[in-house]
């Protein structure tokens, strides 16, 4: 089966373990939300996948081929990164020209088409663009590249609401016509909650969970009511966090719901992805 396989990756920086024996996979054909707090290790892992840095241990395997220093994965994966690596003195149209020479799968017509939709001036040099438009250029380049695995690292940073909406529209349209793996690393969870199919949550260099959004939302819920009742309801459950509002206690639970006892004053409500994320990453302290 085609996938990006992350195999026992460990990466240390001067005594700090950024990634600690991380293993999981991104399967072909899904849209992933790659979530984690700042410094959780998201960018480190993306950089290893893109051969920008090296793992101390372990390897990344893309469609059965090692991703480290290997041109065989060149047409397989592309990472739109948060940091600007492009030649800043090149005009946008020339950037497109070079990308189309570097990648067989780059659709330059599509790149210009997307630029028009975003009102991106392709005659400007990269460095003359505003921060938002620099992001738009990077998104455009990534969207016009027909590689099977595409990674977006904080894609909508600095984009206004209309442009963000346009980006998600283009992404979904593209995905519909041409199924591939899209990995979105972001803090803006609510925005992508309905777009993604599966979540990989990483915290302090470890994978906290990998789950389909449906299952996750199906198993995460919040129970609220008088403290005593909440505590007794939660006794045999996996509680990932608590909140209090005076006498009202809220408990966030992951797992199967059991029916409320007769005459109970408890209320069960849904927990959205963002809440789930916050509670899960809060649990480990910090």
């Amino acid at each position, binding site marked *: 089966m085609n996938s990006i396989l992350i195999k026992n990756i460990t990466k240390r920086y001067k005594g700090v373990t950024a990634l600690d024996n991380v293993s999981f996979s991104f399967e072909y054909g899904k849209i992933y939300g790659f979530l984690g707090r700042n410094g959780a290790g998201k*960018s480190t892992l993306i*950089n290893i996948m893109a051969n920008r*840095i090296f793992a101390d241990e372990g390897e990344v395997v893309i469609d059965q081929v090692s991703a480290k*220093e*290997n041109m065989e*994965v060149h047409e397989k994966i592309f990472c739109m990164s948060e*940091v600007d690596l492009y*030649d800043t003195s090149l005009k946008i149209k020339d950037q497109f020209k070079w990308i189309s020479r570097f*990648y067989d799968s780059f659709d330059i017509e599509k790149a210009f088409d997307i630029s028009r939709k975003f009102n991106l001036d392709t005659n400007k040099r990269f460095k003359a663009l505003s921060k938002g438009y620099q992001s738009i250029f990077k998104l455009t380049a990534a969207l016009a590249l027909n590689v099977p695995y595409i990674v977006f690292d904080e894609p909508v940073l600095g984009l206004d609401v209309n442009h963000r909406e346009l980006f998600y529209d283009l992404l979904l349209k593209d995905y519909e016509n041409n199924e591939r793996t899209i990995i979105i690393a972001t803090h803006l969870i609510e925005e992508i909650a309905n777009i993604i199919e599966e979540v990989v949550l990483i915290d302090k260099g470890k994978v906290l969970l990998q789950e389909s959004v449906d299952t996750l939302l199906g198993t995460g819920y919040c129970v609220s009511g008088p403290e005593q009742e909440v505590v007794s309801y939660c006794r045999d459950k996996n509680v990932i966090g608590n909140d209090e509002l005076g006498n009202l206690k809220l408990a966030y639970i992951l797992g199967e719901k059991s029916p409320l006892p007769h005459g109970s004053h408890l209320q069960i409500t849904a927990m959205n992805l963002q809440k789930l994320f916050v509670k899960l990453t809060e649990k480990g302290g910090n």
Partner: protein
Amino acid sequence: MGKLKEAIRYECSTSFKYIWYFYAIQYAIVALIYAILSISTGSTERLGVSCLETNTFIYVGIVSILGMTEDFKMLIQNGFMRKYIFISTVSLFVFMSGIMALFDTAAGNILRHIVYGYTTLFGSIYGYDNIFISWLWLFLLYMFICVLLYLAILVIYKIGKTLSICLGVALGGTVLLITAVFQYVLSNEAVNKIIETAAKAMGFMPDGTIIYLFPVLTLLLFVVVLGIGSYAVIRRIELKS
């Protein structure tokens, strides 16, 4: 292999026009000096400048440093592996050094006939007998500067600022130590022997003849050694964020 060709093409074609900007500015300045001199002294005989090739040293040096910082980023963003980045950067060095050595050799030999007292770098050392060797020597000299600075910047990037400064201090110390060894430890005979070998490496034979092949081979050896060193470092270079 097609991708490697495109990476080389990127490296060379994005640097090509700057070569001519550089020459345009350089010769504009030369012309200005010439004009000022001729107005103020009334004589057009002496230009007062020689060996314009040394300016090219600075230019190729800057390009080789940028080759690391800028082009590495651009090519790694576009999914190239380090081996390809290294080959394309070295190709840029060959391309740039080749063209600039050709231009400088030609310009130097023309200037020599127009401007009284002008000498080319090669000519001032070896004379003007062999234009081809003059070009080849200059080409290798530029290459040497490129790979030397490329290796230096790679090492600095790899080991970081603090360690690089320590390394620089250590290198300075070594130079002092070697000088001391020459002065106080080695016998006069040994020192003479070493100087003689160095002179031979530069092509000057004890009998007063000049063998052009020797300096060419010496430079080539340096370029290859530094190149291998650069490759060993770039293989391990990680992008800094």
